[in-house]
């Protein structure tokens, strides 16, 4: 296996982008990534496209070919593959790109993710997202995605004394970080009261505990580490890429407050990178709901099980804290175009490790981790990146 590096990144703005189509979004992100890497189209050996539900959101399948065509790569016959793992589709597309380069099968690969969620009404969007859970045994009983995470939150509160305010602290922190990210869907500060007084979605989760419905795309260019410096002065090296499965239904999880897939993927990633949680400078984690970030920092080993709430409240995960979590604003403030999120996390890590993250720059960041979850934990993808090989 070869060492692999990210040599270019690109991302569209995230938000309700009614004037842009799926293909326009992907091409915009892809072009900015290859311009960043200074790579010509003819050099691209393969494309991987993370997308959860094009069939529902834009009634279009065969997205690999669509993207190759509209990226001007169909005439070069560049192979293009769509990758799906619900909200972890982006992280998984990134992983497929890394595996393809690491194996020696391809040299220059573009891994991207895109989702266009606002071309359909909210009811269709909610129903499409519910397809990431078990339709026959959760969906038919009235389970919604916020409903499943609300049941995780309820049990976390019961077992560990986690409070509404601690959940809200996740959203407040991520909105604060989002104010410094010009691509974020929400760039406004909110208070604990904004969250705890907002509309109830699924008790105890309120609308400000939830990530929004978003359009957006992101892309990275991946190359073998030995040639990365030909393209880029500051390549970001992939130190670990890990993926794990857990039960698709929440009710089958041995501990409903623990995402086993996250624990497994994180353990493999730490082993692969020969690192421990304390070595991680900062992380972009999957905060689709506020409780998800609390479970993530526990399952990734940054705090002990049950201590995610107090750790967030104390500022440990804020910019300037011991382990800044979601410096980009996370899914909560950046928005969550499901197929794009996992790649956008890698874009943020790359910007931070290059020292190009602007006002939200973490000083001296050396090692960054991304954590992308599909469904209520059926899939987890963890990557670790570093400035050094």
């Amino acid at each position: 296996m070869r060492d692999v590096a990210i040599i270019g990144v690109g991302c569209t703005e995230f938000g309700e982008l009614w004037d842009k189509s799926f293909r326009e979004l992907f091409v915009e992100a892809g072009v900015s990534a290859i311009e960043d890497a200074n790579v010509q189209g003819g050099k691209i050996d393969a494309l991987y496209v993370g997308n959860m539900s094009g069939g529902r959101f834009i009634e279009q399948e065969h997205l690999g070919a669509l993207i190759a065509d509209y990226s001007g790569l169909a005439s070069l016959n560049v192979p293009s593959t769509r990758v799906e793992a619900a909200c972890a589709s982006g992280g998984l597309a990134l992983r497929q790109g890394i595996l393809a380069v690491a194996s020696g099968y391809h040299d220059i690969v573009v891994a991207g993710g895109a989702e266009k969620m606002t071309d359909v009404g909210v009811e269709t969007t909610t129903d499409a997202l519910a397809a990431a859970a078990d339709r026959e045994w959760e969906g038919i009983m009235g389970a919604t995605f916020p409903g499943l995470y609300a049941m995780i939150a309820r049990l976390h509160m019961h077992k560990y004394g986690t409070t509404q305010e601690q959940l809200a602290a996740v959203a407040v922190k991520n909105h604060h970080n989002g104010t410094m990210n010009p691509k974020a869907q929400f760039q406004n500060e909110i208070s604990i009261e904004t969250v705890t007084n907002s509309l109830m979605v699924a008790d105890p989760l309120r609308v400000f505990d939830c990530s929004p419905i978003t359009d957006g795309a992101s892309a990275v260019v991946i190359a073998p580490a030995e040639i990365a410096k030909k393209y880029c002065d500051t390549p970001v090296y992939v130190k670990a890429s890990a993926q794990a499965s857990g039960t698709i239904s929440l009710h089958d999880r041995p501990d409903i407050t623990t995402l086993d897939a996250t624990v497994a993927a994180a353990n493999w990633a730490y082993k692969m990178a020969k690192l421990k949680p304390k070595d991680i400078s900062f992380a972009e984690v999957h905060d689709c709901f506020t409780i998800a970030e609390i479970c993530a920092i526990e399952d990734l080993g940054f705090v002990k099980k049950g201590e995610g709430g107090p750790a967030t409240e104390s500022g440990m995960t804020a910019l300037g804290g011991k382990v800044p979590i979601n410096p980009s604003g996370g899914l909560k403030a950046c928005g969550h175009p499901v197929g794009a999120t996992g790649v956008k996390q890698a874009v943020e890590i790359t910007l931070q490790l290059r020292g190009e993250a602007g006002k939200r720059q973490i000083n001296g960041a050396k090692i960054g981790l991304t954590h992308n979850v599909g469904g209520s934990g059926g899939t987890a993808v963890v990557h670790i990146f570093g400035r050094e090989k």
Partner: protein
Amino acid sequence: MSVPRFWRRLKNLYNLIGTHCEKCGRFFYPPRNMCPKCRRNGIVSPFKFKGSGVVVTYTIVHTSAKDYSKLTPYILAIIKLDEGPSLTSQVICDHSQICIGMRVRSAFRKLGEESDKGMIYYGTKFVPMEEKA
């Protein structure tokens, strides 16, 4: 959900029939046709659950799922059946009454309908143990 997809599950949804692995003794609801522990060595056969269990966790859903808007807000819960497996269902009781650890038992209820002339879905919901179904 399409008619065939629902129809295939009628016996499970109406009568709380899951499966049992005769090799390792574990029970499954929702039913599985392969034991995740014994895998191909397992001997899996149908099993009818008593229907009593306990609330592991719950939520009150305010923004409803498709086909559930008329019932909103409703209690969604994970229930651990006494035989071992857990499932997702609704609990029918006063919203102030629901709590983690509450004993419940199964009840045959309407789950939803597609439209005035469409298919009506029935299945299992749960009620507090002391109440009549």
